Every structure is written in structure tokens, then in C-alpha cells.
């Protein structure tokens, strides 16, 4: 039976970190009596520790709420969104599942950089936006100025923006009133063929891959035969349901609904975010727009610090992959680090999250090599290789040329940082494309840049150059020929393959010098002198030396206290376990990370 879509509101909340997104979501659930506070913490809020600590959402967790207003019963679907450039595509799909968004701005902080990307994404998806001024209970609150900022910077009418303290529960009803009055209801057609957008998915060991969907047209029930546009695969629906926020089965999901769908799908990579589901027979002719195949852009080697835990690492990656279709991995072997995996990620944050989850949830100690991108290598004989591990690069003499991925980068910034940003982009081998004043206080700059420069330390540099005010978004536009070289690091005369990098020739000297200096700091002195060299081909371009250790001896043993001496030695020995033996040199695991964090 068709539902009264005029009583449905699908919306999300967008905000800068710490402006109170989760707290407001909690309050809305309190007011709509959806779940207890304690459950709210477990359910709506980000479920992973890492997400909570970093204040970002990775997995999207929607919730359905009921609210009575002017005697009418309304149904709200609140969809949470991640807030990082790595996941821009996922955010855009979540936004597409909504008709409106609540924009939270902190009453004392005002508009901040991270707010903007998501606001623009919301506007791109034609969402209606309700600005909300939060934290008005703070003594430093300046709601009027912040309202003006919203009008000036984003161009939204903020005069009627609710003044809220999510913490104190002030103004929540006003927010819900505006959700009902200002956000449009969905306008799907129940009788048309099914069109459902997948905006997320996760793996459940009993139900298989579960898709989070928004129904645009038509309806779906258990027993229906459905088809995925992207893969063409067909499945029989085993269950549909809604989030209360617990997964609760229902008979039917229909136009305007947000819910989930299970169909005994074994692999999350069959439920691609952004794909459209329709019925296998008599289905829609065209999918919903905007689907993109996401592919990993950033690669690194991941090795267990303790080689004996290779199989544990393998199991852990398999488990994570079940829930994360964008994670790629394949086995690789390094002379320095032994057996491990070359892994592919959406971006740097995605990489860091996976590393942290491997370490925390699976209790693994990891060594990670510097992140890189994948290159097209065209050999003299015309053959083209795709190389993401510097060690797999053919000898320089066999290479005709190499190509690297290039992105179009969009940078949003207040005008005062334009100079700093352009300088930074030039330094990162960027090509200037365009500069537009969006408002008097906001500029959009476009550059074409090698991805390899972006993943290196661009994001951090950008933040520090602009006091956090600039935001970045980028899209891959293709591969370009580039003068790239393999930079090797030699420890005591031996190449350490795990430290090799592919860099632009012009950057090689600076990188080589920087890495050698950094390694000198992190490699402890040993019984002999250790030369650290950076080399291109056979040519050494930088050299540092770790001097031989001269003092490593125990202090006086007071009154025959041998036990204390022994403990000290054992502690030293324990420390050595975290070292990797590279040839004759002991290298601490952190050394492999330092070249990743290196700032010039």
C-alpha cells in the first residue's frame, strides 16, 4: 500500500567537527522518544572507538523516528554522514538519499572550513538546508554575528535559524518544527518500477551483505527478485526493514522510505555504494544518476612487526574487507620486512583508520611503508605495467616513460589565504586552472595536481598554511606523463626495499635528504657506524651517519642487586623486539612511519 509521503522527512545533519552533531542527534532522539540515552550512545553514534576519538563518522548509521506535530504523525529518517575528503563520494550518496539537511554552526566558533565542503555537497544534491545555531548556552556565544556569517559565506537566510543548546536541550522542538515545515517531503511514485539507492552497506554474518537503501520509486518486499544495475547480478530479497535504530523487519519498503535490504548476498562488493537496485522483471530502465565505481587511490605495504603473525594479519584483513568493499589487498614480500600485504585505500584517512583498526581490534603490531599511488610504466618494448610498489619498478634502462595519476583539486578558502595556497600548490607541482570568488569572503581555487603530492603531506600543509580555514576536495582526472624516479635508501650500504619511493625527479633531492636526516634521528646508535644514503639509480644524493654507540653499560650494582641489572637488560632486550633487522642494522618500526610524516 502506498504511504503518505507528505508525512516523511529524510534529512541529515552536517557540521564541522565538535559543533555538536552527535549531541543534537541524541536530543532529537530524546524528544521523539526513539531510544533511551544510553542506547543512543550505542546505536546512533558512531560505533567504532576510532570514529569516536577522531570525531568522525565512517560507517553511516541511519535512524527512523516518529514525531507528532499539530496532531499529525510524522516519520523522520535521520542519516548520519562522514566528514572527510576520503569519503566524499559516500557522503554525497548519503546526501542524495535525503531531501534536506540541518546545518549546525557553533554559536561562538562560527563557520569553519570543514562545514563548507559538506554544505556545498548538500547544495549540489539540491538539498534544502536549515541552519541551526548551537551552543547558545556558552558565555562566548554570538548568535547574531554567526547568523550574518552564514548569510555572507554560504548565502543562506539565517534570520529564522533556531537558537539551540543541544547539550541543555534548548530549542530542539523548534528544529523539528522547521524540519517539518521547511524540508520538502519525498515525491516518489509508488506505482513506477523500483528504484532504490544504496548509500551504505555492511556485512552481517547471518544475513550476508546488508544494503542501506533509500527508495525513490516503487516498492520492495521479501521474496522479490531484484537486480543491481552496476553488477547486473540478481538476488532474491530475504528481508527488508527499518532502523529504529535497531534493524527491525517490515513487510514493505516503498517510495520515500529509508531502510535496509538483505538478499543472501555473500560479498559487500556486490552492494556498491551509489548503485541502484530495481526489480529483476519489469524493472526500471535507467539507474539513478551519480554512481561511481570507487577504486583505491593510495597504496602502502602493511607488515606484521612480528613475522610470525602474518596469518593473523591475513585473517584480520579478510574480516575488514567483508565490511569495506573499498579496501584492497594482495600478498607481497619485502626483503627487509618479510611477508606482508600491499593494500589499497580510498585516501590517507581511510589508510590510517584501517591501520588503527588492525592494531586495536586485532591486536596487531604493524609496520607500514610510505603511502604511494599507482603508476603506469611504459617499457621500451611497448609493454605497460601498473606499479604501486616501488620495488616492482623495472630497471630504469627498461623504462620508456612513466605516468602518474593527476587530480583536479578544489580548494575553498577565505581570500586572505589565496597567496599561501597558491604557493603551496605550485610547490606541489600544481597547475593553476581557475580562481572564483564565491562570495566576498570565500574563494574557490582550482588546480591540477599529481595525486602523489596530495597524499604526501598536502592536507596537513594546507591546514597549517590556512589556520584550518581552507578545505579541499579532489577528483581523479587521469594519468599524465611525468619525470619520475625511484629513490632508494641504503642502510650500511644495503638497499632497504621497504623504504624505497617513487618521486618526481625535482623532488628527489629534498626528499632523499629529508628522509636520511629523519632516519638518523630514529635509528638508535649501534656498535658500529651506520651510513644512511639516499640514491637514485647508483648515484648517492644524500648521506647521513649514525655514529657508533659508545656507552651502553649498567650502573653500579648496589649491595649485590643483580636482579635489577638483569631487569634492565631484559627491558633493553624487549625494546629490541620492536626492531627490524635490515642487513646488519637494527631499525625501529617507527622508522618506516617517519618517512610518511616527514615535513620538509
Amino acid at each position, binding site marked *: 500500500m502506498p504511504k503518505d509521503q507528505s508525512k516523511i522527512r529524510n534529512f541529515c545533519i552536517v557540521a564541522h567537527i565538535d559543533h555538536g552533531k552527535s549531541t543534537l542527534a541524541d536530543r532529537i532522539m530524546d524528544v521523539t522518544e526513539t531510544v533511551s540515552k544510553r542506547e543512543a550512545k550505542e546505536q546512533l553514534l558512531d560505533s567504532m572507538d576510532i570514529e569516536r576519538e577522531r570525531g568522525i563518522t565512517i560507517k553511516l548509521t541511519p535512524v527512523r523516528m516518529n514525531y507528532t506535530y499539530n496532531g499529525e504523525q510524522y516519520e523522520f529518517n535521520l542519516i548520519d554522514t562522514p566528514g572527510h575528503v576520503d569519503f566524499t563520494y559516500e557522503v554525497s550518496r548519503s546526501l542524495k538519499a535525503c531531501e534536506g539537511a540541518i546545518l549546525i554552526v557553533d554559536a561562538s566558533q562560527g563557520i569553519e572550513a570543514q562545514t563548507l565542503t559538506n554544505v556545498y555537497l548538500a547544495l549540489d544534491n539540491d538539498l534544502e538546508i536549515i541552519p541551526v545555531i548551537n551552543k547558545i548556552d556558552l558565555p562566548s556565544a554570538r548568535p547574531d554575528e554567526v547568523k550574518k556569517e552564514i548569510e555572507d559565506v554560504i548565502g543562506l537566510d539565517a534570520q529564522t535559524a533556531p537558537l539551540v543548546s543541544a547539550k541543555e536541550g534548548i530549542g530542539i522542538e523548534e528544529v523539528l518544527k522547521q524540519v517539518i515545515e521547511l524540508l520538502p517531503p519525498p515525491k516518489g511514485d509508488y506505482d513506477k518500477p523500483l528504484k532504490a539507492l544504496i548509500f551504505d552497506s555492511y556485512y552481517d554474518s547471518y544475513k550476508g551483505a546488508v544494503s542501506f537503501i533509500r527508495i525513490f520509486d516503487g516498492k520492495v518486499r521479501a521474496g522479490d527478485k531484484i537486480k543491481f544495475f552496476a553488477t547486473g547480478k540478481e538476488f532474491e530479497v530475504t528481508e527488508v526493514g527499518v532502523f529504529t535504530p535497531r534493524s527491525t523487519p517490515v513487510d514493505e519498503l516503498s517510495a520515500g522510505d529509508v531502510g535496509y535490504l538483505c538478499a543472501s548476498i555473500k560479498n559487500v562488493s556486490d552492494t556498491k555504494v551509489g548503485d541502484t537496485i530495481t526489480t529483476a522483471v519489469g524493472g526500471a530502465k535507467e539507474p539513478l544518476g551519480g554512481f561511481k565505481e570507487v577504486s583505491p587511490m593510495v597504496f602502502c605495504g602493511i607488515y606484521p612487526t612480528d613475522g610470525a603473525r602474518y596469518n593473523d594479519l591475513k585473517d584480520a584483513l579478510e574480516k575488514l574487507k567483508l565490511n569495506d568493499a573499498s579496501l584492497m589487498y594482495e600478498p607481497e614480500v619485502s626483503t627487509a620486512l618479510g611477508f606482508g600485504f600491499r593494500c589499497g585505500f580510498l585516501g590517507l584517512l581511510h589508510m590510517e583508520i584501517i591501520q588503527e583498526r588492525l592494531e586495536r581490534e586485532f591486536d596487531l603490531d604493524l609496520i607500514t611503508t610510505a603511502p604511494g599511488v599507482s603508476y603506469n610504466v611504459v617499457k621500451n618494448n611497448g609493454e605497460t605495467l601498473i606499479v604501486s610498489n616501488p620495488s616492482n619498478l623495472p630497471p630504469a634502462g627498461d623504462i620508456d616513460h612513466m605516468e602518474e595519476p593527476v587530480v583536479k583539486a578544489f580548494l575553498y578558502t577565505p581570500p586572505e589565504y589565496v597567496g599561501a595556497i597558491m604557493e603551496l600548490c605550485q610547490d606541489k607541482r600544481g597547475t593553476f586552472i581557475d580562481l572564483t570568488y564565491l562570495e566576498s569572503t570565500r574563494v574557490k581555487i582550482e588546480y591540477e595536481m599529481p595525486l602523489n603530492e596530495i597524499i604526501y603531506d598536502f592536507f596537513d600543509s594546507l591546514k597549517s598554511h590556512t589556520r584550518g580555514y581552507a578545505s579541499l576536495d579532489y577528483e581523479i582526472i587521469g594519468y599524465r606523463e611525468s619525470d619520475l624516479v625511484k629513490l632508494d635508501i641504503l642502510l650500511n650500504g644495503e638497499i632497504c626495499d621497504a623504504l624505497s619511493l617513487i618521486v618526481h625527479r625535482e623532488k628527489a633531492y629534498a626528499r632523499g635528504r629529508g628522509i636520511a636526516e629523519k632516519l638518523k634521528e630514529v635509528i638508535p646508535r649501534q656498535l658500529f657506524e651506520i651510513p644512511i644514503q639516499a640514491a637514485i639509480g647508483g648515484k648517492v644524493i644524500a648521506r647521513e651517519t649514525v655514529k657508533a654507540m*659508545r*656507552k651502553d653499560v649498567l650502573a653500579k650494582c648496589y*649491595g649485590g642487586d643483580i*636482579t635489577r641489572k638483569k631487569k634492565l637488560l631484559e627491558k633493553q632486550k624487549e625494546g629490541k623486539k620492536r626492531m627490524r633487522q635490515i642487513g646488519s642494522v637494527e631499525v625501529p618500526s617507527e622508522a618506516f612511519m617517519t618517512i610518511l610524516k616527514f615535513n620538509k
Partner: protein
Amino acid sequence: MSAAGIYVHIPFCRSKCAYCDFVSVCEGEEKQRLYIGALLREINTGRKIFDGVADTLYIGGGTPSCLYDGAVESIVGALGDSFDLSLREFTVECNPDTFTQTKADELKKAGVTRISLGVQSLDDGVLKRAGRRHDAATAMQAVRLAVKSGFDVSADLMLGLEGQREDDVDAFVGFMADEGVTHLSAYMLKVERGTPLARAVDDGLILPSDDDCADLYDRTVSKLKEHGFSRYETSNFCKDGKRCLHNMKYWTMCDYLAFGVAAHGKIGRLRYYNDGDVDGYIRAVAQGIHAYRTEEVLDDEEELKEYVMLGLRLEDGVDVGEAERRFGIPFEERFADGLKKAAGYVLFDGRTLRIKPEYALVANAVINMFV
């Protein structure tokens, strides 16, 4: 079975040095008497755990020389009542500021043969900054008094003190050699957590670097050599064969009994330790509770590990034959891996295993290749 050693700990000092994290308190005679009372009582119960011969006695601290008159004699008396003493060496640690003529006479009378003087430096500035109570002149006087009184004299030199330079080392070694000191211990300052020194370092105090310390040590070794001293352990030097017999027992894993708070003993495979503070010790002994509360029984592996760890600090090195007898192992086979790793750093001829002299100061790194 070789004879055992006896260690007695005196946890009193007139003041606490900035770098010290050892058990020592500044207390008057009343508390000292209580402590000695407990100590004598503990000694009386010692018979139960040991009935062999003891041939070295070492009273350390703290500052044993700051004890009230007669205390040392009472300790020796109690030990004599409980054990078969046949002392070849009887050492008392003294600080220059409390080592007076009266003290020297008293110790002589008690049978002391050897005085270990905590001189540490002969640079007034360095001494003052380290929080030592004495100056160079006092120290020199004490050294002369000890030698004149007929004791074997050992002097402690600390390396790496704030502002210390090589000329301090030169002056120190030169003076000691000239005055007839026959033993010298040269330890490097270690900044222990929780000490005033550690706080000062946190607040920006700059101490000589590891390399500076290594320079000071190398200087000490070469100066001592010039004056006829030889190194017999990483930090210990002597001439005329005047090794510290008691300390040798630690390094060769002989038995030693321990009495007093914070004292460590070893009998056979048992290592034991009187932990807690002075008051706790006095209470425990008064209640007739066995004073030592921490003990560890070494297994074969641990004992062998310690034997090698300690032996490698000695100039004589690890006695391979002795190790094979004691632990019933084929030494070369058991340590094949370590011998391979340490090949460039040790001397091994099948009978002894020694660290090459030039690597004495990085002994830990070498020892870790074996244990």
C-alpha cells in the same frame, strides 16, 4: 664450595645526594639504634639459612661511617656469634666528611681491613653541584688518613657529573695513585627517576652527554693504566692484585648473605631481597617476621644467563670450563648464536669468553647477544 660473603646495609646518610635513589634516610642516633637492634636480631636468625664459612664482609650504605660509635663492632660481634667468620677482607664504605681519626681507630679495632671512600670527584664545583657534603680538601685528608691508618683504600670516582671535565679525572687518578690508594671504582652517573637530579634535568639541567661520559671513562682508563692500575671489571680497577674480593663474589655468582633493609643476598639458587623502608624493616624484624619479603629461585636458564651476564663484565671473562661444570652444558654449542653475532666484539679461545677491552663500555649491547 667456596666461602660466602656477607653484605650489611646501613641506610643512613647525613644528607641525601641529588642523584641517589637508593634506600637511605637522614636520621639521628635514636633511630640508628633501633635499626641496629633489628639488624642484630636478623643476623641472629641468619644461621637458619646458612651454616658455611664466610670470608668477606662488606658494610655498605648509605653511609656506614655516619653510624654512632660502637655500631660496627656490635654488627661484627653478632655476625661472629652466628657464623663461621674467617675474614680475608672486611670493607666499610665511608664518606670523607664522616671519616675522622676517631672513626678510623674504631673501625681498625673492629677488624676492618679495607675502606671504600665515596670521594666521587676532586673538583669543588663538581662536588658542590652534585650535592656532596665534602670538598676536595676534606676528601684528600680522608684518603691520607685511611692510607696512614693501614687500610686498603678504594676510592669511588663518579663520571658524568654536572660540569665535570677530563682534568678532574686526571687530578683524581693522579692524587689517588700518589697517596697509595690501590683500588678505584669509576661508575657513570645514571639519572634515576624520582630523584632531585631527574627533576633538574627535566627543568633543563645539562649533564655531560653519553659521548662526553665515554670520553671521561676512556680518560680514566688510560690515566689509571699510566699509574699501574689495571681494569678487572667494567668499572673497577686495582693495582698490586688488590681486587675487591667481596664484589668478585657478586660477579662470579658465589653465595652472599645479606642483612638490613634493601640488602640483596644469594644462597645457592635463591636470590632474596629485604624490601620496604627502614621503619617497615624494624617492625618486621621486631615481630619476628622473616625480614626478606622478595625472593626468586633461579632456574638453570636464569642462573646461566646471570653467570654469562656478570662474567662478561670481568676482564677475566666467563670461565668456560667452570660454566660447563656448573651448568652441565656444552658452552660453545649452547652459545653458538651469540658467539656468531658477537664475533667482532669478543675474544673467545675455548677457555674464556671476554669482551674486547675497547667494547667494555658497550657491554650491554654485547651481553644482549648472549642472553
